[in-house]
């Protein structure tokens, strides 16, 4: 072997120094990208428009009526459930309580879940 001579080891040392600085740079880069990436993804992930749309539809549908051959309320409410499930991958359910003598408000319980985001609300008419 090369005996005990070690005058060439500074080359390996330089290799180590450069390697460590590379690792350091990598850590810094990894930290910095997280901010913007998560914001944009969070905006896309969170189904704000889906929830708003479905909530609006449910409230409107509650005040439709089944009359004659037109089952407007039943049809619309079934459509909401089916289309939410098939096109927005979300389970939507709702039920309502009509005004009683002592309480003139209509209440609607709204539940929405797409597996990641769940939304529950008890809507009250004014």
């Amino acid at each position, binding site marked *: 072997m090369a005996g005990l001579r070690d005058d060439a080891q500074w080359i390996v040392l330089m290799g180590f120094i450069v390697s460590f600085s590379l690792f350091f740079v990598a850590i810094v880069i990894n930290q910095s990208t997280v901010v913007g990436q998560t914001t944009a993804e969070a905006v896309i992930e969170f189904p704000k428009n889906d929830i708003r749309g479905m909530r609006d539809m449910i409230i409107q549908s509650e005040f439709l009526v089944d009359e004659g051959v037109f089952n407007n309320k039943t049809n619309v409410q079934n459509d909401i459930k089916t*289309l939410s499930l098939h096109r927005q991958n979300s389970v939507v359910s709702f039920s309502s309580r009509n005004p009683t003598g002592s309480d003139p408000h209509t209440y609607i319980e709204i539940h929405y879940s797409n597996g990641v985001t769940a939304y529950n609300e008890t809507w009250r008419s004014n």
Partner: protein
Amino acid sequence: MVMSENGQLYTIEGIAAALILLVTAFIVVNSTSVYTQGDTHINDMQLELLGSDALSMLNTAPNSSFGKSPLQTIVETDDSALFRTLFLNTINNTTGPGGDRIQYKANVTYVDKDGFVSTLPLSDSPHPFVGGEHAVRVSQWVIVEKRFPDCSAGSCSGKHAVLVEVLLWRD
């Protein structure tokens, strides 16, 4: 024969250093996932937001005397040309001079009489969708009074909730 290894000292150390560097570089490049603007979905986010804005604006009439939004009328009468004009005007409008170049493909999704989900084409932009585009999907609920093609039974006339779904991309 006596092998002299003295003269290879620097070469061996050089190879060692080079290996360390290359291995490090390989690990670093593999482990840092660098996000470019395209990767972060920022363009998708902007397009999606703009699309749902535009659809919801189309679903709002200018005042309360109409009773129906332009979008409801378009779906009920299958007015593809009107949708194209209104939608392109809204979505490509900018505050500065010139407009944007967003293209779209719109469908109406509804539930037919057997409870299955069906789709009808509503309107297309001048540049049709061919499949290679990086598109985002936005949708808008509307309640319409319309008989859909495979819905002949009396029970399925009247009002229906449908989804207007639009694919959006920039060309």
